[in-house]
Every structure is written in structure tokens, then in C-alpha cells.
């Protein structure tokens, strides 16, 4: 019995001693000469390799680099919890710019750096990191958008420019046209309005949203610049309603997320789909020789017979330097390298991530990438997705869902539209 007592007290002492010493050891850690880099799961290996290259090329750097995992789409969610403990260098999607700035998670670029990236990268990508007259990110990817993939044996190339021809071609062959209307529908659905001249203007005071105004009740403008008798909201909504009317079990329009797309590919009944580069390899594999991609189609309104286009969102990914970093200049050097031409080239080679670097965009490999070419072909009319207020997503998502469910009809369209506009407008002044 004596033994058990000893063991017990030993364990207790051991536990206390262990936690105490470990706690003390923490104070003397080498946190002060380490830079932490966050990168998404799939880029971990690549980023580690890039950092190794960087350290080898810059023996004077003098700091250690540590790694963590954080998706570009999750950057704000994570950084806002504890900006001081967050990585010194991390990637983010440009729609989180304002939020990240307001929680102190961004430090601005020197003019020299700005001039450098302005030379090498797509102008819109550089602007995507701008607040006021300061720039807060090194762009490295320009592929956060959507366009149309199609099966060449189902949709003829000349039909791809018009939404209804695409849907009809799919219907004829009993295939599906997939587009997301529910869940993340707001991201895709807005393209109907933006292509008819829709605008959603945001006014910021520093990083605080003052007003948001949408002009969906203004008169629509078609691709030739002719002003219609109908409003942007009416034209856009009616086009979507017409498309949705082709919802049919045997083929035609259906709502679908990535899982549905995958399923349609497996069942070999996908005719065309509006989605982004992340599905490229899957679709290419399934469609084989019939794999093709192009810009989002135009649509002819059944109201006034004018032609409008779907103007999709385009988003960029940038490397940021944390505003709380202890090593500002070193972090900027590293962030710049992680978004440099070399890094973007490797990112494209290994993960087919669409570069924002102009030189790489012109390389043969990128030009032969069907999906990226389709995406880049939208540059002239795509709408840069900036930091949008939460109500934008919730209100538009409900609206798109209602259209898909057939809850919006010719009779209640005007009231529903008025509600939509009311829901989108924000006034915090």
C-alpha cells in the first residue's frame, strides 16, 4: 500500500513540475527572430520550397521562417481572432481587404514595392489591394472568378455566346446546364445585373462602410450601349427566370454546387456549367476531347429583345504583411518574393493557379490552359469583387433562391425587386 501512495504523489508532483518547467521554457523561446507564413493547405509544400529557395538566395535574411495553415478565404476569420498571434505573412482573397485592415492585420507597401508590382502584375490585381492611396497586398493569383465550361459534343461553339442557345442545346441532348442559384448563388447571380449596367457602389470612410447604393432600378444598357425601356433589375431577373423555366428532369437548367457538378460528370449528362478554375481538372478529365471553356454567355432579353452579357465577379489573391509584425521590412521582402514571378510560375506549374503576373499570363503554357484563357477573356467586363457588406450576400442569395424556386413571378417581380434594392442599400452616415 505504501507503494501506491508514493506513485500517486510522484505523479502529482511530476505533473505540476512538468507544466511549470514547460511554461517557463516558453518565455525564453526564439519567437523574436522567426517569421510565420500562413498558406493554404494545398500550397504548403510549395510555399515551404519557395521559402527555402528564398533563404538560400538571401543568406543575409537572418530570420527563421515558420509555417501555418490558413486558406485565403479564411484569412479574416482567423486573423481577427488574434491579429498579434497571427502570421507575419499570409495570403488573403481581396474581398476581405477592408475587414483585415480594420482589425489591424495589414501593413502598407512602400512606394518602391508598389511601383515594382505595378510593372509586373495586372493592374486590376494591384488595385484590388488598395485602400485610399495606400496598397496593402502583393497580388499572386487572378483566378477567383467563374466562366463557362461546356461539352463540345453538346453545345456547338457558335451557340456558346448566348445563354438560351446553350440551354436549348443542352435540352436537345438531354444534358444539364448547371449554375449555382442557392447557397453561394449570390456570387454567381449578380452577373445578370452587372452585365446590364448594374453597379453596387460602396463609399468608405477609412475602413468603415458609410453607404452602399445599387442602381438596379436604373434603365438597363445593352452590349451596344443602347438604353432599354426596362430597368436593370427587370432585365436581369427576367433573364434568370427564363433560364430557370427550363428546369426539367430530363435536362436543361439546374442549380448545382461542386457535388452536383461531380455527379453530373459521373453520370455523363453535363452539357455546360458555370463555375471556376477549381473544377477544371475534374471537368477536363470527364469530358476528355470534348472539354472546352469560354466566357460567361450573353443573353437576349425576352422583354426588349436586346442583348446583354453576364458580367461575372473576378477576385484576386494577395500576400499581406500583418500590421502587428515585429519584422516589417523582412516580412515585406518575403511576401514580395512569395508573390513574385518565380513564385507565380511555380504555383502555376504545380497547382495550375492562374497568375496575376502579366509576363506569365502571356506564356504558352498559360495560353494553352483552356480554363484560364476563358477566365482571362472576361477581363474587359468582369467586375472586381471588392469587400462587400454581409447584407449583399444574404439578400441576393435569397433573391436568387426565390427565382430558382419559382417564387418570383411576373406579378410580384416589381415588389420583390424593390425589396431587393432596399435590402442591398446601406446607409451608415
Amino acid at each position, binding site marked *: 500500500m505504501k507503494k501506491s501512495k508514493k506513485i500517486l504523489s510522484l505523479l502529482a508532483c511530476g505533473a505540476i513540475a512538468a507544466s511549470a518547467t514547460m511554461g517557463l521554457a516558453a518565455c525564453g523561446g526564439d519567437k523574436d527572430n522567426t517569421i510565420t507564413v500562413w498558406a493554404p493547405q494545398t500550397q504548403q509544400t510549395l510555399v515551404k520550397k519557395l521559402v527555402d529557395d528564398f533563404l538560400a538566395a538571401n543568406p543575409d535574411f537572418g530570420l527563421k521562417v515558420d509555417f*501555418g495553415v490558413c486558406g485565403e478565404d479564411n484569412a479574416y476569420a482567423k486573423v481577427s481572432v488574434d491579429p498579434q498571434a497571427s502570421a507575419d505573412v499570409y495570403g488573403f482573397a481581396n474581398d476581405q481587404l477592408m475587414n483585415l485592415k480594420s482589425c489591424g492585420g495589414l501593413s502598407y507597401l512602400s512606394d518602391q514595392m508598389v511601383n515594382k508590382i505595378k510593372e509586373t502584375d495586372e493592374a486590376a490585381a494591384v488595385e484590388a489591394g488598395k485602400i485610399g492611396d495606400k496598397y496593402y497586398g502583393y497580388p499572386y493569383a487572378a483566378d477567383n472568378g467563374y466562366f463557362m465550361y461546356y461539352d463540345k459534343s453538346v453545345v456547338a461553339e457558335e451557340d456558346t455566346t448566348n445563354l438560351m442557345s446553350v440551354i436549348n442545346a443542352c435540352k436537345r441532348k438531354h444534358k444539364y446546364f448547371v449554375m449555382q442559384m442557392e447557397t453561394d448563388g449570390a456570387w454567381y447571380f449578380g452577373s445578370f445585373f452587372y452585365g446590364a449596367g448594374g453597379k453596387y457602389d460602396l463609399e468608405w470612410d477609412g475602413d468603415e462602410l458609410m453607404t452602399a447604393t445599387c442602381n438596379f432600378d436604373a434603365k438597363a444598357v445593352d452590349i451596344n450601349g443602347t438604353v432599354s425601356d426596362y430597368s436593370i433589375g427587370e432585365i436581369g431577373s427576367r433573364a434568370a427566370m427564363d433560364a430557370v423555366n427550363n428546369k426539367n428532369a430530363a435536362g436543361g437548367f439546374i442549380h448545382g454546387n461542386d457535388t452536383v457538378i461531380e455527379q453530373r460528370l459521373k453520370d455523363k449528362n453535363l452539357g455546360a456549367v458555370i463555375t471556376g478554375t477549381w473544377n477544371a481538372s475534374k471537368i477536363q478529365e470527364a469530358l476528355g476531347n470534348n472539354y472546352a471553356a469560354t466566357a460567361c454567355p450573353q443573353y437576349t432579353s425576352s422583354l426588349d429583345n436586346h442583348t446583354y452579357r453576364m458580367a461575372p465577379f473576378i477576385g484576386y489573391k494577395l500576400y499581406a504583411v500583418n500590421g502587428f509584425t515585429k519584422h516589417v521590412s523582412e516580412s515585406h521582402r518575403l511576401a514580395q518574393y512569395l508573390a513574385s514571378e518565380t513564385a507565380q510560375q511555380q504555383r502555376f506549374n504545380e497547382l495550375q493557379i492562374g497568375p496575376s503576373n502579366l509576363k506569365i499570363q502571356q506564356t504558352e503554357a498559360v495560353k494553352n490552359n483552356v480554363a484560364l484563357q476563358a477566365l482571362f477573356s472576361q477581363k474587359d467586363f468582369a467586375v472586381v469583387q471588392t469587400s462587400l457588406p454581409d447584407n449583399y450576400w444574404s439578400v441576393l442569395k435569397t433573391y436568387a433562391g426565390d427565382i430558382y424556386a419559382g417564387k418570383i413571378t411576373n406579378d410580384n417581380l416589381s415588389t420583390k425587386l424593390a425589396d431587393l434594392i432596399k435590402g442591398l442599400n446601406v446607409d451608415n452616415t
Partner: protein
Amino acid sequence: MAKKLRSKKAVERGTNIAIYVILALISIIWLFPFFYLVIQSLRGETGTATPYFWPKEWTFNNYIKLFTDKSIFNFPKWYLTTLIISIFVTVIQTIFVLVTSYALSRMRFKMRKPLMNLMLVLGMFPGFMSMTAVYFLLKLLGLTQDMGLVGLVLVYVASSCMGYYVSKGFFDTIPKSLDEAARIDGASRHTVFIKIILPLAKPIIIYTILTAFMAPWGEYMFASLMAFGKQDYYNVAVGLKDMLDKEVADIYFTRFCAGSVIVSIPITALFFWLQKYYVEGVTGGSVKG
């Protein structure tokens, strides 16, 4: 005409059948998620949810890859981390709970009642309400990120003595005269606890160990906050959730299922091993002597 009479046996059989059908249905509903997880973990096709239930291709690869393919996710490491946390928590928490219960059951001191009331009230607050505050406190002490595991153990055991109810109830059932006899023979409180009470309280020790061991395996919130993106310090719950990230879920969904099944193994094993004590422990405490 008189109502047709049925024998008692027939009536009993009827009710029994009804009861068993209901029970069977309930157990199917209850077991189904776990069953689904096991089936999915053996699925050969990739992708997240499939529209059919039975896999078209069966494989054990998901389990093998989970432990061998460490290119993106280091499952074995998370598993080990969680196991270590669990062992530490089990040891410390068991000691805390038993000691507290003994004191509150046997000793009479001025603050006993107020203390018990205080613990009751404190226990009403959900732990995660103080999460952010606790996190920043630990950060001040340097017990996050690199020292996150120590911090995690601290967080898990910090208020563990408040779970003294069941074991105190059990100690209450052990006759006081045993203590008194030992005390007359010159034993100290400590000796009484170690030599008299503990050997009699095996079921409740086992119960305490089991509950303490189980908790860290499924804990997500604190664990993710402490690791803060550093994969080396993930526990299984945080790590497995990362496998469902939209970038990788397609490939890793079946492995995620395999991982979830693996997580349940140590708990289940311990449970089966200590099962007979467990039932005694839970029910024993409820009978007041």
C-alpha cells in the same frame, strides 16, 4: 356477444413485439451515423457525399493512407498529440476529482457548503463563454502556440474538480465507521483516503478516468484556438476538420471518415475493458448509504 377474450400470454407477446420493434427502430436511428461513417471510410471512390449508400468499390486504403501519406496532413502526429494530452488530462483530472470529492464528502469545514454552492453556480456557465479571456491569459503566460499543448492540458483540467458530484456521492455511500475505526488506530486523513477509501472506490476511479480520457478527443474549440494554424500542434478534431476544407475535401473525405473511426478506437477499447466498473460507478453513486 361478449368481447372476444385473448389470453394473457398473447397480450404480452403483442406488447413485447411492439416494444421490440420500437427499440429496434430507435437503435437503427441511433447507430446509423456511425454505421455510415464506417461504410464511407471503406469507400474506394473519391469525392464527398455520394448519392448512393453502398460503395461501388471497397477498400482499406483510406486507413493505410491516413497513416502513410503525410504530404499534407500528418494524422499520426495529431493522434499522438491527442493521446498525450489525454493521458496528462486523465492523470491530473482523476487526482483532482477524487481529492475534492473526498474532502467534500468526509470533512466538515466552514466553507464547505458555500464552496459547493459556488461550484454549482460556476458550473452553470458554459466553458466557451470565457474562452477568449482564457486564451489571452494563457497568451500572457506564453502558453499558446508553441506551448499550446501545456496550455490545453491546463484548460482541460482547470475546472475539473467541479465535476466531483458523482464521486462524492459514491464516497458518501462508504460507511463512515470505516474511517473512524482507522482514525482511532492512528491513521491520518491521508492514510484513510489512500488505504481505506480508494480501494473501495475502484468503480468510481475507473469512471473518472474514462470521462477524463474521453473529453480531449472530441474537443475542437480550444484546441483550434491554441494551435492557431500551426499544424504541428493540432489535435485530431482540429486536424480532421481541416480535411473537410473545400480545397481538399474531395480527396480526403473518405480518409476523414477513416480518421473518425480510428479516433473512436482507444475510447471504445478502454470502455470495453473497464465496462463492468463503469456501470457500477455511475449507478453506485446514486444510492445514498
